[in-house]
């Protein structure tokens, strides 16, 4: 199937002639291998702009769903997306493309680290990379916190702080903390929305 076919493919067209399993695998492998520091940008570019497999709205909706569900978001998105186009085989093909090739690279990196990880220069380089990577993660945290701060969402910020202390400082087990925190947070959010309405 030529990839330069007219970009008119909306959802109904896709259902009559969806991409083949090989095409799904290759497309997701490409997005994944392009994605340094996160695949989301490339997934949006590939799925929405390049292949026109989803509209921007469909993509956002699907991503929102996969973001509020647990687990690696982009993996969830890939699985759901693949299954919409080609059922379970489609899900497996897209997932294998997304995870397979970079996981192989990771195994090679792991083997190299296992062998050469004690070399002083490499240890120093990785320490430096880690410092920068932590900064990148903190930037994401700040960006996500900004709306809470702007809204002066004191309860949200206190919830955030409580989780930070429980997990980051007290090092309590994740499952135990969340089994308490999730129902509590949902109850509080629900009550506040009802009050506001």
């Amino acid at each position, binding site marked *: 199937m030529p990839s330069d076919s007219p970009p008119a493919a909306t959802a109904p067209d896709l259902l009559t002639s969806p991409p083949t399993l090989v095409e799904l695998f290759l497309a997701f492998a490409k997005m*994944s291998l392009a*994605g340094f*520091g*996160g*695949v989301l940008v490339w997934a949006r570019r590939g799925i929405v702009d390049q292949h026109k497999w989803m509209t921007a709205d469909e993509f956002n909706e699907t991503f*929102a*769903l996969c973001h*509020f*569900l647990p*687990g*690696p*978001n982009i*993996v969830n*998105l*890939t*699985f*759901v997306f693949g299954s919409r186009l080609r059922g379970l085989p489609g*899900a497996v093909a897209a997932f294998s493309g*997304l*995870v397979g090739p970079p*996981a192989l*690279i*990771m*195994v090679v*990196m*792991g*083997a190299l*680290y296992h062998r050469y*990880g004690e070399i002083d*220069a490499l240890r120093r380089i*990785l*320490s*430096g*990379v*880690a410092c*920068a*990577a*932590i*900064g*990148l*993660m903190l*930037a*994401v*945290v*700040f*960006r*996500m916190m900004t709306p809470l701060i702007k809204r002066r969402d004191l309860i949200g910020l206190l*919830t*955030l702080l*409580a*989780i*930070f202390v429980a*997990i980051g400082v007290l090092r309590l087990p*994740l*499952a135990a903390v969340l089994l308490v925190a*999730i129902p509590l*947070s949902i109850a*509080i*959010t629900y009550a506040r*929305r009802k009050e506001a309405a």
Partner: protein
Amino acid sequence: MNSDANPVFTLALTFAVMSLFAIGGANSAIPEMHRVAVDVHHWLTDKQFTDVYAIAQLSPGPNVLIVTLIGYSVAGLAGALVATLAMCVPTAVLALFVSRFLARSSHARWPAVVQAALVPLSIGLMGASGFILARTSDRTVVAVLMTVVAAVLASVTKLNPLWMLVAGGCLGFAGLIG
């Protein structure tokens, strides 16, 4: 806890359960990965754990693949495969069922409440991830500066994050990070 048990089985169980609590994505589960891999099972040292995180960030692909590296360190190829699948498949299948259910029902109301309730939890978890990694990594003034500069640059510019990782690597190679 029980180091006599088959490590591959332990990996599978650990990551399958962990994935169900990784709200906001793989980076939210880093504190739990650290707790399990460093404190509970002693699979990795503190330094090795931050190294593994750095390698995962330097490599292409989804963030979740840090578990591939952890699995590899514990039990080689089998460990890498099992850890990756255990972390990905249960939640992917869950997502599939939920998306099919939501496509059929028009009750799009409750996910909005759940989503709003989960946001602060997920930010708190990511903050804890940064804190736990920084405790090991940011031990010198230059190291802390590097982290702060990367955080500021990533917040206010559209600079490709890969450049900051490379800059960090160069400073580290020069022996400035410690």
